[in-house]
C-alpha cells in the first residue's frame, strides 16, 4: 500500500511567557493512502498541535513530516483542514462558503466549479446553495463544512473534533454521513476526537496518545471483520466493546 504521510520523530515545544511547554515528544507515524486514522488522547495533551504540524501550520521543534515523500514546509493544497465546529462564514451563502478555498487559491476553473456543484448535488445540498448557514440544521452545516474542505481536492483530510459541537443524536448520523462521504471520495483522513466510540466506528486505525507531552501510547488496528461494517452497525458488533474497554483503560491510566 502506498504511504501518504510519514511523521518522523517530531517534537514541539511552545515558547510561552511563563516558560517552555512541551506539547509533543518524539512521535512517529506512517499513514497509508485511503486510511482513516483517529487520534484520541486526554484533553490538552497536544492533539490539535499534532494536526497543526501535519497541516504545515506549525513547524516542529525537531523531526519532519513528509507527504507523498516530500518534506512539508507550509500549508499546501494536498491537505484539507476541517476545524472544530463548522466555522462557516455567516455572511456567505452555502455556495460561497464551499467556494472559499478555490477562491483563495485562485483555482475557480470551470472543472473545479463543476466538481463542487457535483458534490453539492451528491450530498443533498444543491437546493440549499443560496441559503445562509444560519438557515441550515447542525448536520447540514457539517456537510457543508466537509464539502468546503473537499472542494480544493485535497488528498489528505485533517479533522479536529469535527462533531464536538453537535448533540448526541445528530452526531451519530453526521459521523455516519461524513464517514461515507470520505470513503466514497477515496480520501485519506486523520481525525482527532474525544469520543472513543466515534473513533472505533469510523477508523481503520486508532492512535492513543499519552497525556502531555503527547507520545504514542498504543495503536489499534481495527479488525478487518469490523471494518466491513458501517459506523452505526459497528456499535452493535461484539468486538466494539473489546476495543472500547481497552482504549478506555489506556486513557484512564493516563489520569493517575
Amino acid at each position, binding site marked *: 500500500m502506498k504511504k501518504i504521510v510519514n511523521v518522523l520523530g517530531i517534537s514541539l515545544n511552545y515558547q510561552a511567557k511563563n516558560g517552555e511547554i512541551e506539547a509533543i515528544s518524539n512521535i512517529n507515524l506512517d499513514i497509508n493512502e485511503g486510511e482513516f486514522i483517529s487520534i484520541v488522547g486526554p484533553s490538552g495533551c497536544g492533539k490539535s498541535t499534532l494536526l*497543526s504540524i501535519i*497541516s*504545515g*501550520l506549525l513547524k516542529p521543534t525537531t523531526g519532519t513530516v513528509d507527504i507523498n515523500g516530500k518534506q512539508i514546509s*507550509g*500549508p*499546501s*493544497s494536498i*491537505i*484539507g*483542514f476541517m*476545524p*472544530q*465546529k463548522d*466555522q462557516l*462564514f*455567516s*455572511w456567505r451563502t452555502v455556495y460561497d462558503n464551499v467556494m*472559499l*478555498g478555490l*477562491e*483563495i*487559491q485562485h483555482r475557480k476553473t470551470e472543472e473545479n466549479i463543476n466538481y463542487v456543484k457535483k458534490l453539492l448535488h451528491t450530498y443533498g445540498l444543491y437546493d440549499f446553495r443560496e441559503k445562509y448557514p444560519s438557515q441550515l440544521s447542525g448536520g447540514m452545516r457539517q456537510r457543508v463544512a466537509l464539502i468546503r474542505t473537499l472542494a*480544493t481536492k485535497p488528498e489528505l483530510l*485533517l479533522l479536529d473534533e469535527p462533531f464536538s459541537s453537535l448533540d448526541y443524536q445528530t452526531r451519530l448520523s453526521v459521523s455516519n454521513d461524513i464517514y461515507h462521504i470520505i470513503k466514497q471520495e477515496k480520501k485519506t483522513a486523520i481525525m482527532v476526537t474525544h469520543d472513543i466510540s466515534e473513533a472505533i466506528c469510523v477508523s481503520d486505525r486508532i492512535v492513543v496518545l499519552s497525556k502531555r507531552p503527547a507520545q504514542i501510547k498504543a495503536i489499534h488496528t481495527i479488525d478487518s471483520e469490523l471494518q466491513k461494517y458501517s459506523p452505526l452497525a459497528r456499535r452493535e458488533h461484539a468486538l466494539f466493546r473489546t476495543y472500547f474497554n481497552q482504549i478506555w483503560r489506556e486513557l484512564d491510566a493516563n489520569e493517575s
Partner: protein
Amino acid sequence: MNHNNKPILSSARKIYLKKTHQTNFFIILCKIILILGLIGLWEIAGTLGWIDSFIMSQPSRIIRCILDLYEQKTLFEHIGVSCLETIVGFLLGTFIGTFIAALLWWSPFISKVLEPYLVILNALPKVALGPIIIVWVGAGQKAIIIMALAISLIVTILEVLHGFDETDSEKIKLMRAMGATQWQIFRYLIFPANIPTIINSLKINVGLSWVGVIMGEFLVSKAGIGYLIVYGSQVFQMDLVMASVVILTCAAAIMYQGIVLLQKFLIKHIH
C-alpha cells in the same frame, strides 16, 4: 372549516393577545400625554406669568421663531450646514478609524507600541483641543469637521481593533490551512466578520460627531445650529436658543434613526 388559512386561536391566546395589545396602546398613549402635557404646562406657565417667558421662552414663541427662520430662508441653511459637518465628521471618523485599526491589526508590533498613547488620547476630553485646532487649520468649517473627527477617531480605532483582534482564531486557522495570505484573511474574514462592529461604531460616532460640531460651531462658525445657539444667547434672545435646541434634537434623532435603519438593513442582508 377554516377557509382563510388563519390558525385557530385558543381562547387563552386570544385573551393574551388582547391584553398585550391593550398594554401597548396604553404605553403609547402615556408617551403622547407626557410630551403634550409638558408642552402645555410650559405654555400655560408662560402665559399666566408663573415663569418669565423672556428667560424661559415658551412653546408658542419657539414655534414662531422657527417659522421666522423659515421665512427668512435661513432655517434649512443652518440645519444643512450642521448636518453636513456632522455627516462628514462621522463618516471620516469611521473610515479613518477603521483604516488605522486595520493597519494596527496588520502589525501587532506597531499596535503594541501605540497602545498606551491611544489609551491616553482616548481619556483626553477632545474639546480641549479646540483652540489648538483653530490655530492650526484656521477658524472655519475645516476646524469644525476636524473637531468632530477628533472626538470619534480614537474610540473608533480602539473599538474596531478590538473586534478585529477578537475574530475567531479557528477561522483564521482554517484560512491559513487553505494557504490564504494576510491580505486574503483580512478581506475574506476579518473585515466582513466585523461589519457589525463597524456599523456600531458608526452609530456611536453620529452622537460624538454632533458634540464635536456643536462645540466647533460655538467656537468659530458663521452658520449652523451651534452658531444659532451662541448667537441667540449673545443677543439674549432665548426663543432663538430654545428653537435651535429643538431643531438640533430633531436633526440628531432623525440622523440616528437613519443609521439604525441602515444597520438593520445591512445586518439582514450580509449577516
